């Protein structure tokens, strides 16, 4: 067990370095220069530009910049932003909690509602409520989040006037309700479908027949035997989806004016603040990797047939 975890953690290192390097390289390849961008369309002195680029090490070759960046990162230094001179760690500390809150909110919503709907449908496959639910999830999946976001904004804010169209306070859970629903709805549909399919399949499994034959109470059959086995694929999905939720927030945060990671990345990208983009991306990659590990470990918990040596 310990060895398995250790090995997985070791495997993560090249993946982490690879992913961050790719993003770093892509940022490096972007046209447009962060220092030049600061000057705006007013006049400026090219000598200053050169001096500043040199000071920031932006004139070094790509690999050297990356090594410098990684060395800093290993010492816990995310670097400083070129424009504001602020430590990027501060920027991350401002933005991450907001997005994590939004993501967790969306995540909870999709887990509860998604699994709930899936169970309701899966227990009676091919019934009317099953068909209806499948149709509903299809519609949800077919709406890109910006469509759903504007739709909700239009209906609930402009037509009904129940809420303000955008979030006024990113720390207020009530304000975050609508963005969280929009953010979570796509995954919610997947969760519901996955749960439903997996439940429907397992209903026919031998162990279910055994359990029924043993005369176990229905609640125990569904709650323990069926659920435990049916949740394996759902858990896989949930684990790998957290990272997606966090980047999907770029769109949702934009529509609802939530000042989280998406907002920060979007702005940094357009100002060519490479270190900010890479720093935030690295953290998302890390969250993604840890969640995949977590999922694999949960397998062992959920499925007794799986052992990690």
């Amino acid at each position: 067990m310990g060895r398995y975890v250790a090995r997985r953690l070791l495997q993560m290192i090249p993946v982490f370095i690879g992913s961050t390097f790719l993003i770093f390289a892509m940022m490096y390849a972007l046209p447009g220069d962060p220092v030049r961008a600061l000057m705006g369309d007013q006049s400026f002195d090219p000598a200053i530009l050169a001096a500043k680029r040199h000071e920031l090490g932006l004139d070094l070759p790509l690999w050297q910049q990356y090594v410098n960046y990684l060395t800093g990162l290993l010492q816990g230094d995310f670097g400083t932003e070129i424009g504001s001179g602020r430590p990027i760690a501060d920027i991350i500390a401002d933005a991450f909690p907001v997005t994590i809150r939004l993501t967790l909110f969306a995540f909870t919503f999709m887990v509860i509602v998604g699994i709930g709907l899936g169970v309701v449908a899966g227990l009676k496959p091919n019934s009317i409520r099953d068909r209806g639910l499948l149709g509903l999830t299809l519609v949800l999946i077919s709406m890109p989040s910006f469509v759903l976001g504007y739709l909700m904004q239009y209906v609930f804010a402009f037509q009904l006037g129940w809420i303000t169209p955008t979030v006024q306070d990113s720390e207020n859970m009530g304000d975050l309700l609508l963005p969280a629903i929009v953010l979570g709805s796509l995954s919610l549909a997947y969760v519901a479908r996955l749960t439903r399919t997996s439940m429907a399949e397992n209903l026919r499994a031998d162990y279910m027949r055994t359990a029924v034959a043993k005369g176990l109470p229905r609640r125990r059959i569904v709650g323990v035997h069926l659920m435990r086995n049916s949740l394996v694929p759902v858990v896989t999905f949930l684990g790998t989806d957290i990272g997606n939720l966090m980047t999907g927030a770029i769109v949702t945060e934009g529509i609802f004016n939530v000042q989280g990671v998406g907002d920060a990345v979007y702005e940094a990208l357009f100002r060519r603040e490479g270190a900010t983009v890479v720093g935030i991306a690295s953290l998302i990659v890390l969250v993604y990797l840890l969640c995949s590990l977590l999922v694999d470990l949960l397998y062992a918990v959920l499925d007794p047939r799986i052992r990690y040596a």
Partner: protein
Amino acid sequence: MRGAKSAKWVAGAIVVALAATACGGSDGGKNEGKGNASGKPAGYVSIDVGEPQKPLIPADTNESLGSYVIQSLFTQLLDFDADGNIVYTNAESVETKDSKTWTVKLKPGWKFHNGEAVTAQSYVDAWNWYANIKNQQQNSFWYADIAGYADVHPAKGEPKADKMSGLKVVDETTFTIELTEKVPYFNYKLGYATWAPLPKAFYADPKAFGTKPIGNGPYKFEKWDRKKLIQVSAFDGYQGPNKAKNKGILFKNYATVEAAYQDLVSGNLDIIRQVGPTDLPKYKQDLGDGAIEQPYAAVQSLVPAFYSKSFKDIDPKVLQGLSMAIDRDTITKTVLNNTRSPATSFTPPQVKGNQDLGTDVFTYNPEKAKKLIQEGGGVPENKFTIQYNADGGHKEWVTAVCESIRKATGVDCVGDAKPDFATDLESRDNDQVKGMYRGGWVADYPVNVNFLKELYHSNAESNNGRFKDAEVDALMAKADKANSLEESVKGYQEVEKKILEKMPAIPLWYYRINGGHGKNVDNVAVDFHGDLELTGVTVK
């Protein structure tokens, strides 16, 4: 079962770790949040001004957000009224006999926010520091007129001196500025925010100063809650004419103008600088008396890249024709929601020297447009592009202008969107514009030269269309040699007439500010370059 159990344990550990980071983070966020959610102090005025891009040092800021804050904290020698006339603030007088040597007399008794006296030395030291290449100040080129600039700011290598020879302190409140050449409108340049003085405390740690500036302006710095707000309070010791009529300002950051607008309507924000396109059609209804609509000194134009395939050696007649193919009236009324007014010259009406050019080049006239383009030999391949940055809200009007031209003349025109401003600028710097680009200019000082020399002189830094014309350069040189401002302004009026024949750009429209204020405040005025005069705002 051992495997499963320890798997449970490790899984649990990761969950706890993740949860811990999440909670840790949100706790931090909450504490900060409470600090500023508690509402603004009584008598303060809030306005939507986002996070400045750079540290708050006068000579290192030229974007509008940072400038707002800088202008509240610092006062220069002089300022301008709404008509563009000089109003002396920190200076008693700025005088010259020959447009080359200028004598500045300061008002006595002025203090920085930390109590230090504002003296001639405060100015001279600050300007020397700003101009020094080692300090990499973005606005350092503003000091290039001063004798000795080349020593502190050589084109290459280390500076030879740390003081400009042209700056001499005469006594506590007097200093002289010697320029390398005559600049009849030099005193107008001094109104730009970059010419502010610095206290001694600055030099000890410029970096820390940039996050906690000490100025000599109407407001003193209180706090900067990153990405949320900057708070400044009225400075009791201020002696200028623009002393604050309120207790302080909160510069609040919003991710979108729509969010700011909603806060304004619901009373959580006092002033909005510009209403977003979504709310423009209805803002006058929503705000009533609070709606602000006023033109200011800025021009938007299309600038042909004279090195591009489309416009190399183009006959100016073609450009005049294209200009006449643009239905400025309809576009400003529909697509632009009245946020601009059609241009009738190369300079906005608020600057000295703006004139009636007596031409129909800016009037929509499809027939004449077609005729002129034909006479001039047409646009190569009968098509061209307009480059713009997609992140600046320009797409709609570029599309409309293109369609107007296409419909009127049959010359095909498409937008060439660069994803962001950085890419747009790089393409302009490197002479990679394929047709025209979107040009915009806001007055630094309200004199016509600012809109002509900086944009169309052969060697001007911002002349990205690479317009080169010996006649125009010669006229500018002549106007610069004038002994008085009036003469110089007249000289530049001649330049403008010449430019109309050469068409280095197609002026489109002048800007208007479409902002508003809530019911809690009053007396919100707009200055010549479109900034709101915060000092005059009163709280009800």
